[in-house]
């Protein structure tokens, strides 16, 4: 109780303590972690001073190797070295085959439809491989910043669908990271560039990474970043440029297209080096074994032209979707290493009629922006000047209706969070169940859309056809993750699911991986669980104390305040001990007694926003 009384209203009840949070760019080719240090957002280097961590993971029988050394082993140990794993995230085996490239891995099926890669350390899902990359970044951040992380903002391509987002979040969970937000990469880049509160106007973010292409159109108004439209291609990137050059070598050198995995990797490495050299020179000599030939920038431009054209087409679509005209776009930001390719810059400049911005390193800009947002979300900035990022869903969400058609419930480019309901009825007398099939995509036929989940609403009381009223509600949270509820309104029968994508991991698989990772780390599971309960409790106590300090005088009567303070004290006492169960129970209790207070605070912020508005109007 004493704690609460010391604090002045609006002040943190505890001495100012910076809560450590990081931004992570989990990229196809490279990954980075960045944090705000002395007011400046910057990528964190490893012990050798390198900020970029190649997204390469090599599995040995007894250990995991991540980064540059793993990448170098890709040609010599192709089966145990996973590159560009981001392209496999949230994908089924069929999708992976359709990626159109010959991946060297041996895939095996798991409990779910997710492809597992066979390694010397056993089967590894793309989620586990990504988690291994994230763990390295987390350790780097914790040792550089000198403390445990409150959480992380992890970036995803704006075009990532539900399954890919969920897979990313699962990977973070496996790596022991608390995800403050999944943030779209282009939005993160806009934050890095648009920190100036006075920046206003329409901005296009052209993001061509190793494996994905994103285009977002944003409107910046007084610190609010509103995504108007987003589009792209989740299977288009710089890797495709490498493949195009590799294809050219195969053709010119008269090689058999059926290369073994090691030779394939070797060929791609040569292709990638040639691509990078062509950024600064007009022609490069390509050597493969005894064969050699010159590749001019012009010829390279010709090879990649179809891919560049594909990206521009997505740009035009996004501009149309955002209801702005091309000449309203006042700035174009370049993101991703592949935007170093001169032809790409040239084509983008031609299309938008202006030179794109490239001042911030295109490989670092996303992590830098993510770190800024992470710092705000962790609660380090609460002065009203924090940026607000309003994102959209990239693909329409809907349901299967009669005749195998997709009915859209939430169209693409709708601002999130969003909740929308649609009513259906039964079509047979006495029908007691209804299948709900959740889909994502733009096409009309369900076979052309991605199936996200199926579930059944059961126990509908017997009625004549058409009498039941089944309301299906879609709710998308700020991370872009979907929750679907179905409810029969006459009887109140309800069924809901947190959509687990068809290509995601099953809960069983996640449980096994978590267990494995504990064993692997030599971690004591009980201690770990207790630690998590303590962290949860601490987080709640801090939130409640900050809330009471800020609004307690205004929104709580003396009795209510006393009850809350007593529960806080009780929890504080329990946290000194080791009874995890009691801590968990008390955390729940504290959460319950602050329920009404929480609702009041939220409503009062709405009123405050309006009051501020009215005041301005009077002043005008």
């Amino acid at each position, binding site marked *: 109780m004493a704690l609460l009384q010391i604090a002045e209203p609006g002040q943190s009840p505890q001495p100012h303590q910076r*809560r450590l949070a990081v931004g992570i760019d989990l990229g196809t080719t490279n990954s980075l972690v960045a944090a705000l240090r002395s007011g400046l957002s910057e990528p964190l280097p490893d012990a050798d001073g390198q900020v970029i961590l190649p997204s390469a993971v090599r599995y040995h029988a007894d250990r995991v190797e991540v980064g540059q050394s793993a990448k170098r082993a890709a040609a010599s140990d192709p089966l145990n070295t996973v590159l560009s794993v981001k392209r496999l995230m949230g994908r089924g085996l069929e999708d992976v085959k359709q990626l159109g490239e010959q991946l060297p891995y041996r895939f095996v099926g798991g409990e779910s439809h997710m492809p597992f890669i066979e390694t010397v350390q056993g089967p590894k899902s793309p989620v586990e491989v990504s988690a291994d990359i994230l763990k390295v970044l987390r350790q780097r951040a914790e040792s550089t910043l000198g403390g445990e992380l*409150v*959480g992380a903002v992890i970036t995803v391509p704006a075009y990532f669908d539900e399954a890919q987002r969920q897979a990313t979040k699962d990977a973070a969970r496996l790596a022991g990271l608390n995800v*403050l*937000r999944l943030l779209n990469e282009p939005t993160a880049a806009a934050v890095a560039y648009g920190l100036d509160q006075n920046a206003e106007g329409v901005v296009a973010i052209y993001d061509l990474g190793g494996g994905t292409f994103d285009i977002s159109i944003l409107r910046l*108004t*007084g610190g*609010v970043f*509103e995504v108007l439209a987003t589009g792209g291609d989740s299977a288009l990137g710089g890797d495709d440029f490498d493949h195009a050059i590799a294809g050219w070598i195969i053709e010119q050198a008269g090689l058999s297209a059926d290369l073994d995995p090691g030779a394939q990797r070797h060929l791609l490495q040569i292709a990638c080096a040639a691509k990078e050299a062509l950024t600064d020179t007009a022609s490069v000599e390509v050597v493969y074994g005894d064969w050699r030939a010159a590749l001019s920038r012009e010829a390279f431009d010709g090879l990649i032209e179809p891919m560049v054209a594909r990206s521009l*087409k997505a740009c*035009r*679509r996004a501009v*149309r*979707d955002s209801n702005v005209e091309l000449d309203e776009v006042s700035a174009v930001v370049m993101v991703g290493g592949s935007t170093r390719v001169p032809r790409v810059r040239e084509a983008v400049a031609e299309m938008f009629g202006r030179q794109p911005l490239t001042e911030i390193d295109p490989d670092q800009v996303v992590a830098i922006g993510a770190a800024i*947002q992470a710092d*705000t*979300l*962790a*609660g380090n900035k609460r002065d009203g000047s*924090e940026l*607000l*990022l*309003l994102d959209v869903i990239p693909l329409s969400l809907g349901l299967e209706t009669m005749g195998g058609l997709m009915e859209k419930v939430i169209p693409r480019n*709708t*601002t*999130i*969070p*969003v*909740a*929308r309901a649609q009513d259906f009825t039964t079509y047979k007398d006495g029908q007691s169940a209804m299948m709900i099939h959740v889909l994502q995509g733009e096409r009309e036929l369900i076979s052309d859309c991605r199936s996200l989940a199926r579930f059944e609403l059961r126990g509908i009381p017997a009625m004549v056809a058409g009498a039941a009223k089944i309301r299906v509600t879609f*709710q998308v*949270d*700020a991370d872009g993750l979907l929750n679907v509820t179905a409810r029969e309104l006459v009887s109140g029968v309800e069924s809901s699911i947190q959509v687990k994508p068809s290509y995601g991991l099953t809960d069983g698989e996640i449980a096994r991986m978590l267990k494995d990772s504990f064993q692997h780390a030599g971690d004591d599971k009980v201690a770990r669980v207790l630690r998590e309960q303590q962290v949860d409790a601490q*987080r*709640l106590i*801090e*939130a*409640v104390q900050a*809330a009471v300090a800020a609004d307690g005088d205004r929104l709580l009567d003396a009795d209510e305040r006393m009850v809350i303070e007593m529960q806080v004290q009780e929890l504080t006492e329990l946290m000194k001990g080791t009874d995890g169960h009691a801590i968990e129970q008390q955390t729940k209790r504290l*959460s319950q007694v*602050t*329920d009404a207070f*929480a*609702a009041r*605070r*939220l*409503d009062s*912020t*709405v009123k*405050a*926003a*309006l009051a*501020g*508005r*009215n005041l301005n109007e009077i002043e005008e």
Partner: protein
Amino acid sequence: MGTPCHFALFELQPSFTLDLEQLAARYRELARGVHPDRFADASEREQRLALERSASLNEAYQTLKSPPKRARYLLAMGGHELPLEVTVHDPDFLLQQMQWREELEELQDEADLSGIASFKRRLKVAQDQLNDSFAACWNDAAQREQAERLMRRMQFLDKLTYEVRQLEERLDD
């Protein structure tokens, strides 16, 4: 708090004529107050509330910002049932609809981009006219039927705008 009327949420009187700039500015202020990002380190309950409030704010904004949706919402206020799909008795408009569609098909067959641009301009003019007519009659009980008819026309033109966009996309292939 229940579900307040979309207009009340923005502290506006129900009206078809809205200053969209002002609506957008107010939306941004309200969003600042309730967006889940403000509650990233708050209790689970507060996060859930923020999610719900944000979602209903977004819904209200989407509805008010689009003229056909705003028109429909105004007509549905006060408990009037408005089925989404009905056969409207509006022979004049039916004829006009057919003309619009035929024209669009021709534009598609000829892949006529400048024709599409002028089609879009005419569509915009027609939409503006409809909006004006609706604004003049929606609040008059005696003209209820006319207001509903105009609202359906607005919906049709909205759909047509979407089809034009899809056509542009196809021609871009």
